[in-house]
């Protein structure tokens, strides 16, 4: 998977920048691929996902992916590009936000994704991508994206 990878090597610094640029009482909103979905992989030869074991962060070891096409156009010709990605878990995302002085207001999780991870995913009329359930329907049981809202205290 290449679409989900968070491209930030230092989440703590990122949260600090978010907090610094928020006005007191201001709102930070994040909609992102779910860390759980980031750790899914195809079972070879099946249109089924399983959990790749790497779900916890290893900041010193970014994933290195050769770029083939783009999540917006899988058949696009790209040459020689490489992407580095870091795995973050929910604890780290929430922890850096609270650590930067923000107050977490909500965490929501969704069984849909804004882009397809594999070419056999299914897009609905509202343009959300789903995992098929293998029986002609859609899988509603796994978290593929999330949103977090946090505020900067007014005082």
């Amino acid at each position, binding site marked *: 998977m290449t679409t989900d990878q968070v491209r930030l090597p230092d989440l703590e610094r990122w949260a600090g920048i978010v907090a610094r640029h928020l006005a007191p009482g201001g709102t930070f909103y994040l909609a992102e691929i779910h860390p759980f979905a980031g750790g899914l992989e195809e079972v070879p030869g099946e249109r089924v996902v399983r*959990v790749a*074991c790497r779900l916890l962060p290893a900041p010193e070891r970014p994933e290195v992916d050769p770029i083939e096409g783009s999540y917006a156009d899988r058949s696009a010709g790209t040459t020689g590009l490489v992407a580095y990605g870091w795995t973050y878990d929910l*604890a780290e995302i*929430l*922890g850096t936000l*609270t650590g930067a002085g923000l107050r977490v207001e909500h*965490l929501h*999780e969704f069984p849909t994704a804004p882009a397809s991870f594999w070419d056999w995913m299914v897009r609905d009329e509202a343009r959300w991508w789903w995992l098929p359930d293998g029986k002609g329907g859609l899988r509603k049981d796994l978290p593929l994206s999330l949103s977090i809202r946090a505020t900067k205290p007014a005082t």
Partner: protein
Amino acid sequence: MLDDYLKANLASWDEAVGLHVGSQMYDVEGFKKGRCSLSGIEVDELGPSVCEGTSLLHLQCHFGLDTLSWARRGAVVTGVDFSGEGVRAARALADEVGLSARAAFVQSDVLALPDVLQGSFDVVFTSWGALIWIGDLERWAQVVAHFLKPGGTFYIAEFHPYAYLLADDSSPDSLRIGYPYFQYGRPQRFDEPGDYADPEARTEHTVTFEWNHGFAEILDPLLRSGLRLEFLHEFPHTIVGLPFSFLEVCEDGLQRIKGHHDDFPLSFSLKMTKEG
């Protein structure tokens, strides 16, 4: 319907108490000699908030081992469990180890607790295999907030929602998904004759109903009930208690995935504070 689930689960837990009090896993004899039953996770993370005289409410306390371990560390404790057998065993144990002056036990379903218990507490604590028995986390979060003093601490150490969705026949290098992360309020029905503390046991009350809850489902109701998030932590290990064959028990007594000791979260903890 919730009542039917509760009835089945209660019968199972009433039966489990006798098995667990004598089991190797719970090691009650060791506890009587001074062994602390709490894991390092909750001792490290909640321990600093518990000192002499801290009032602590333990939800879903089973037969009181962890409740009494907090009492030994100075807390004045109230343990709550829906099992009458559990509460009776807890009171007997408190008497036997000389802690009954600082340990009370109440029989109640957590969701009905405000009807039977007065007061508010410095700390509300719950742990390890508690949330799967709660069908209505919205109500549960209200109960947690109800019993916290302003400025008080809620703490939970639990099996990770990701761990609960792994298929039983997974291997360490192919972790298949066997159970849903989102259950939309519908419990899983299990019918198993064994017991997690004694897999050889043949129990009479074998049917249970259990809910896997995702993080949003756990965290959001707590935020809505007026608690502020202090931290969420995730750990690649857990206390012994998950039944999967792809796990191993390590020298430190914790379970990890074979060959992947640092990669996959098996437990989490959550600390929150009531505004005030």
